[in-house]
């Protein structure tokens, strides 16, 4: 969030250009959807309240110090917990990152960074790049955030957002479509408890870049906050390092990878695909407090919803009672309801029929268990 006490001068493209040239072009700048905005509109895209100046300096200093250690570790013999490079957009040939969105003129970046992380973790941990989960930033920000006194003008913090995702959950986009400041007047669908993603666990990884890499490679995405300086608005490609410009505010994004050879994190922003590298950016290790302000990991994602029309690709059972599973396309393995013997066998019989006949299935799953099925 912008610091109201220290209004920053607007982005000066010529000065950014000059500084980048003077420093050997560490990254590429360009005019984009952010640079053409008025300064107050731009700063409304930043939605993490800034800590006091002393704390800001400390977290940036810590980040640089950690980055120095991380660079040394990255050049050491492999065997540490994480690979040297990871990108959820191409992990084992699959793209687990959902499309880039646009938060508009509302300091709701925490909702976007958090939701995008949940969407990727849900797909990655299921091994399902085709999951295409689309959750509601509006529900997270305009309902849960509002209940926590967050507004488009105050911003929020990822830890608070994740607590809401853990305690209550977030519904799907079609049940509460997002618009900046909810100008569309959308309302939360009353059936939202039956179309819901929840995060049973989340953990702070702040200040631990080695753990950040391990968890990125294991779960696909993390939530992270960093300090935004004016030059960042003009980023187009390359590995971002602050070269010039005043502090503009705090921002929250989703980390989707890293690259030790370039010494950077790969992040998904929420400023539309017309900003940056198709909506993504790379930021150097230790830059702008990216590792030391607030980094959060989502352990797992539970989904409660109808699958929509899908197919049965596999079925499984073993020598444990009522331990039958179905592999649904783009959903992965789901346990069949095991409330009693008849329920379990009835569901298995119907799903076997669907598989044999190649018939479409619509199943209602709750936290990995199918509790109702249609075979059409």
């Amino acid at each position, binding site marked *: 969030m912008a610091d109201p006490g220290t209004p920053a001068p607007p982005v000066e493209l010529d000065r950014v250009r000059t500084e980048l040239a003077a420093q050997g072009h560490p990254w590429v700048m360009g005019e984009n959807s952010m640079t053409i905005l008025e300064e107050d509109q731009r700063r409304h895209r930043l939605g993490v309240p800034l800590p006091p100046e002393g704390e800001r300096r400390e977290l940036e200093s810590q980040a640089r110090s950690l980055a120095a250690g991380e660079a040394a570790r990255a050049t050491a013999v492999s065997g540490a917990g994480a690979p040297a490079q990871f990108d959820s957009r191409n992990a084992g040939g699959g793209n687990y990152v959902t499309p880039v969105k646009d938060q508009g003129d509302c300091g709701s970046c925490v909702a976007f960074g958090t939701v995008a992380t949940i969407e990727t973790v849900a797909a990655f941990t299921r091994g399902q790049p085709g999951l295409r989960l689309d959750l509601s930033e509006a529900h997270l920000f305009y309902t849960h955030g509002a209940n926590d006194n967050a507004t488009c003008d105050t911003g929020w913090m990822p830890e608070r957002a994740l607590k809401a995702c853990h305690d209550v959950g977030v519904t799907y986009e079609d049940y509460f479509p997002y618009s900046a400041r909810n100008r569309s007047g959308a309302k939360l669908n009353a059936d939202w408890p039956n179309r819901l993603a929840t995060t049973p666990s989340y953990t702070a990884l702040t200040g631990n870049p080695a753990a950040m890499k391990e968890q990125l490679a294991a779960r696909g995405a993390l939530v992270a906050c960093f300090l935004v300086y004016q030059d960042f608005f003009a980023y187009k490609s390359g590995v971002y390092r602050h070269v010039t410009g005043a502090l503009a505010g705090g921002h929250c994004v989703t980390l989707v990878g890293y690259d030790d050879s370039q010494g950077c994190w790969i992040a998904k922003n929420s400023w539309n695909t017309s900003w940056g590298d198709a909506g993504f950016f790379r930021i150097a290790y230790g830059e702008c407090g990216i590792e030391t302000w607030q980094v959060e990991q989502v352990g797992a994602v539970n989904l409660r919803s109808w699958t929509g029309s899908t197919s049965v690709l596999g079925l499984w059972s073993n020598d444990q009672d009522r331990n039958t599973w179905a592999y649904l396309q783009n959903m992965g393995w789901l346990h069949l309801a095991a409330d009693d013997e008849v329920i379990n066998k009835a569901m*298995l019989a119907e799903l076997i029929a669907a*598989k044999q006949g190649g018939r479409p299935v619509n199943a209602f799953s709750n936290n990995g268990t199918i509790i109702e099925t249609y075979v059409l």
Partner: protein
Amino acid sequence: MAASTSPSSAPVTVAPTASPDNAPQPLTPDQLSSATTAVAAGPSAEPALSPPGTPQAALPAATAAAWQSSKKVLALWTNNSPRNGHAWVDTVGWRRMATNSDSVHEALLMLASSARLAGSITYPEAADNLIHEIYLW
């Protein structure tokens, strides 16, 4: 003919050479050889493999179990003895479904029966020659 407790005959195309008796027919050397295909994963409480053609999930630690992968089921057999359903697995022969309980036996036999009509099964060979786990693809 007295009722038997194991398959007494099989379709011509898969008929074992030995005479029917009260135990599954012995495997031929070729069948024994085919039963040592790639080790993939040990029995588990939940499925670990992914269907052919989909992203493969991380496998559990390998064990000594030999897996039969994507095998056709060419025949089925059962009689009026409890938990006595068998499936003839292509290149393997008769395999009885695990007998831990009615629930277990019935679920495994449902999967094997489906494979007789369409698809294939993947399962780990076990020392007791029973099928304790089935993936139906």
